[in-house]
């Protein structure tokens, strides 16, 4: 069974780019979220195998969204895809439960590698 993915990013362009890369590699993108609140709601509704999470977003940032999702499902597999790659932020995201942290811009291989590692 192909794995399902929820994409979270506030820019439509980045959601489209991620979606193209992820779908080309045999995953099914089941949903897209434009902010943290939407990501939490869609996670609970869709229960995807994997989540990509941006950090800087309106309404609810990615760190808070990771914590919320992990609170509901400690087995959630979340990969951060953010431009903000400063050390304290990376540590905070990983402590909150993220499985990996990709700093934008990233190449397609790196995204797929992270997805494979998080959900073998």
């Amino acid at each position, binding site marked *: 069974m192909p794995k399902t993915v929820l994409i979270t990013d*506030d*820019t*439509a*362009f*980045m959601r*489209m780019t991620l979606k193209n890369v992820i779908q080309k590699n045999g995953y099914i993108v089941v949903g897209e979220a434009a902010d943290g609140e939407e990501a939490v709601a869609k996670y609970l509704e869709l229960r995807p195998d994997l989540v990509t999470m941006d950090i*800087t*977003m*309106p309404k609810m940032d990615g760190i808070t969204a990771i914590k919320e999702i992990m609170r509901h499902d400690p087995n959630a597999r979340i990969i951060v895809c953010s*431009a*903000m*790659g*400063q*050390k*304290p*932020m990376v540590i905070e995201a990983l402590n909150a439960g993220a499985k990996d942290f990709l*700093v*934008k*811009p*990233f*190449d397609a291989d790196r995204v797929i590698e992270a997805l494979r590692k998080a959900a073998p």
Partner: protein
Amino acid sequence: MERLDFLRELGNIGIGHATTALSEMLQGKLLRLVVPDARILPFEEAAAYIGGLDEIVAGIFMQISGDVTGHMAFILPIESARTLVELLTQRHGTDEEIFDELGRSALEEIGNIMITSYLNALSALTDLVMSPSIPALAIDMAGAVWESVLAGALVDEAVTIIRTDFSADGVDIGGNIVLLPDEEEFQKIEHALGLEDF
């Protein structure tokens, strides 16, 4: 070290990372990076610095919070913005078609990645956190964009400008990255780097 040398060096590091980031977004299409120029302009000269006040530009504006606070902007001529969006989205068309919701969001993301890469480089150097806000985009007269950036950052005295130009695949793409730290904030960076106050 003179303050301007220090700024130029910060600019070098930041812009080096920012343009590398952009190059990666364009799958290595970026070829040439012109050495950044750093200067501190009195307010009167800053007004005219951007040139061609009624030419159309795209401006991406972000606020910085965290250990160091301030604002950053990435301002580029409309032709450069168009070239970047065409390269990234693989589409061609009229300005209205290119700068639709997807095109605008691509521009916001370019600005976001360049500015944040810049901040990431400074952060790695200083161990200070510089968190960018969500990017905001305006496509309008250069003068209107520029003064809105300066006013938004409450810069009413000297303006610190770090500027770079670059080109991709023989197509000229130029742009200004402008860092506008809050007045006292440079001292924090200098202090973190073990430099004396100037």
